[in-house]
């Protein structure tokens, strides 16, 4: 395993080039270009605010709903965009895979890196919202670093496994949008963690995205400590799944060229 990672590091220039290609190409021939990365979570936030806050009166832990939802939508969009680019990435580069060798995980990883650029741009709006709603950051805000790290590990785990599976079963591609949507409803994006009934909570928190999304709100907007117990479980699940899915990826990688 260590050897595989070392090999991947040797190919970092290729990883960088593929990432740059992804970024450059993403918004070519679109009028709004890079603004799409801001528009997407921003429009979602507006619709959510109108529908879920005004119409459905969903509580938001005393946080203004636009800020409440954007805090979750920003990392969620990062997660969803990463997956939707990573999962078809192997199949769409079939021609390369079948002819030369390099670590194949470069493609899903590059998709995630490219999505992180969108994430950073959309984060500007988040900062603007913090200023607008006059939120003071506390020292707990530093927790955002480990939380983001856990999220990236989890994204990587899902992306590696699903992109490899997509080589063998194209069903994955069709199931993906549905699956991501379902996952969002099972994570505290629209509603606060406090709405989850206590009896369900330990089961609910097994979804590794739940403590992550909940964590962002706590450390950034509420200025409190995250729920370290559940966050720890989330980190554990993410690491184990990443280990297993990378292992799976490396085993089936050998037959990509024949199956794709």
């Amino acid at each position, binding site marked *: 395993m260590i050897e595989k990672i070392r090999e991947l590091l040797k190919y970092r220039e290729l990883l960088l*080039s593929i990432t740059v*290609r992804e970024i*450059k190409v993403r918004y070519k021939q679109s009028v709004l270009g890079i603004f799409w990365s801001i528009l997407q979570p921003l429009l979602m936030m507006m619709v959510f605010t109108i529908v879920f806050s005004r119409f459905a009166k969903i509580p938001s832990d005393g946080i203004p709903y636009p800020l409440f939802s954007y805090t979750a939508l920003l990392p969620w969009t990062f997660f969803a965009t990463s997956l939707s680019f990573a999962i078809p990435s192997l199949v769409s580069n079939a021609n390369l895979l*079948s*002819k*030369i*060798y390099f670590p194949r995980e470069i493609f899903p990883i590059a998709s995630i890196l490219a999505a992180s650029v969108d994430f950073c741009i959309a984060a500007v709006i988040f900062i603007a919202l913090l200023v607008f709603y006059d939120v003071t950051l506390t020292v707990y805000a530093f927790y955002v670093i480990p939380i983001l790290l856990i999220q990236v590990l989890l994204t990587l785990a899902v992306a590696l496994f699903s992109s490899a599976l997509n080589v063998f079963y194209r*069903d994955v591609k069709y199931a993906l949008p549905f699956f991501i949507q379902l996952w969002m409803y099972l994570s505290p994006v629209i509603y606060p963690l406090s709405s989850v009934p206590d009896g369900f909570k330990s089961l609910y928190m097994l979804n590794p995205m739940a403590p992550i999304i909940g964590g962002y709100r706590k450390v950034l907007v509420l200025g409190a400590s995250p729920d370290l117990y559940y966050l720890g479980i989330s980190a554990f699940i993410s690491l184990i799944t990443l280990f297993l899915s990378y292992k799976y990826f490396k085993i089936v990688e050998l037959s990509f060229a024949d199956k794709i």
Partner: protein
Amino acid sequence: MSDLAIKMEKVSKQYRLGQTGYRSLREDIVNIFMRRNAHSECFYALRDVSFELKRGEAVGIIGPNGAGKSTILKLLAGATKSSSGTVMTKGKIGAMIELSAGFHPELTGRENIYLYGAIIGMKKSDIDRKYDEIIEFSGLEKFIDTPIKRYSSGMYARLGFSVSAHLDPDILLVDEVLSVGDYIFQDKCISKMKDFRDSNKTIIYVSHNLDSVRKLCGRAILLKEGRVAYDGAIEEAIRMYYEVMSEKQKGEKLARSFRFIELRLTNSSGQEVKTFEAGEKAVFELKIACNAKVESAFISMFIRYSDGLVVYDTSSDLLTGKYIICEAGQTILVKFEFIVNLLKGIYSLGCNIARSMDGGPVEFLEYMNNAFVFSVKETTSRQGIADLRAACDIQLKI
């Protein structure tokens, strides 16, 4: 042996027939429940292939389509694994393979050079260093900041080849990359590969262009249906290749009613030549066996420039004003005479037999696209393809 660069030992590669690689989950589930295996039929792309290459050797791999040439490259490049046997390579491997997928149409030539270089394993600093050389080699200076979706397919290939030609591996794998691009560029590529070979690097060269294989390699491996049919001197390999091909063609054309027995391209004194002087007379003779009764046959001959452009195309019915009527068992002798009013370059001569169906659609009965390749020699420095016999008159008046 220490100077071994490539060693393949009893290598087989098996593919499953019946379905393309991927499946749908539903099919797999159905198969599990029905206890049947949909992929039971197998096909060997390679079977018990063994050969060795020493460092500094350039070896051609030839053979008809589907003989397993590309599979060997894929195995050596590490893109896929053999089903059995061992593949050993020593040193850094570089691939000059048709990889247009490595390009992105929206990016400029410049951006694609870096992308492509990274894909085939070059470091950014290497590309920086060789950047000017690469562009000069490609001859695409003017278009380097244009998105390559505006490029022609020839320009695509040139760009890709120019990058990979500046790679510095120990083993170079070359696939049919030269088929695109004009012959000047092809010559450039061959001489680049020669430099490579002469600096003690190992080359595996896969091509249908036997002439370029001969230029580069002293040894060739002939593949036939996944097995090594011959491994040795290039001339013998090429001779056997033609045998294999004509066997194959015989198999395919058994039902056809016409066959070329003999084709000759000579100069006016009856000598078979490969070079003509501009303006010289040429004679093209065909001997054709006829195995069916046909009432409206005609023979065409056509000359192409080395980039594929048809320079001239004519046929017996146009020249004689009538169709050929022939019986089974007859032999048709055809003689075309033409003047080589062409300028300096390499041309190919092809021919075909066809019949007109009630003056309407044409059915091709037999063809030979590159029956001969000849060059035209010329001492003046006129440019172009056709000699239009231009005249010029100058007068000065006060």
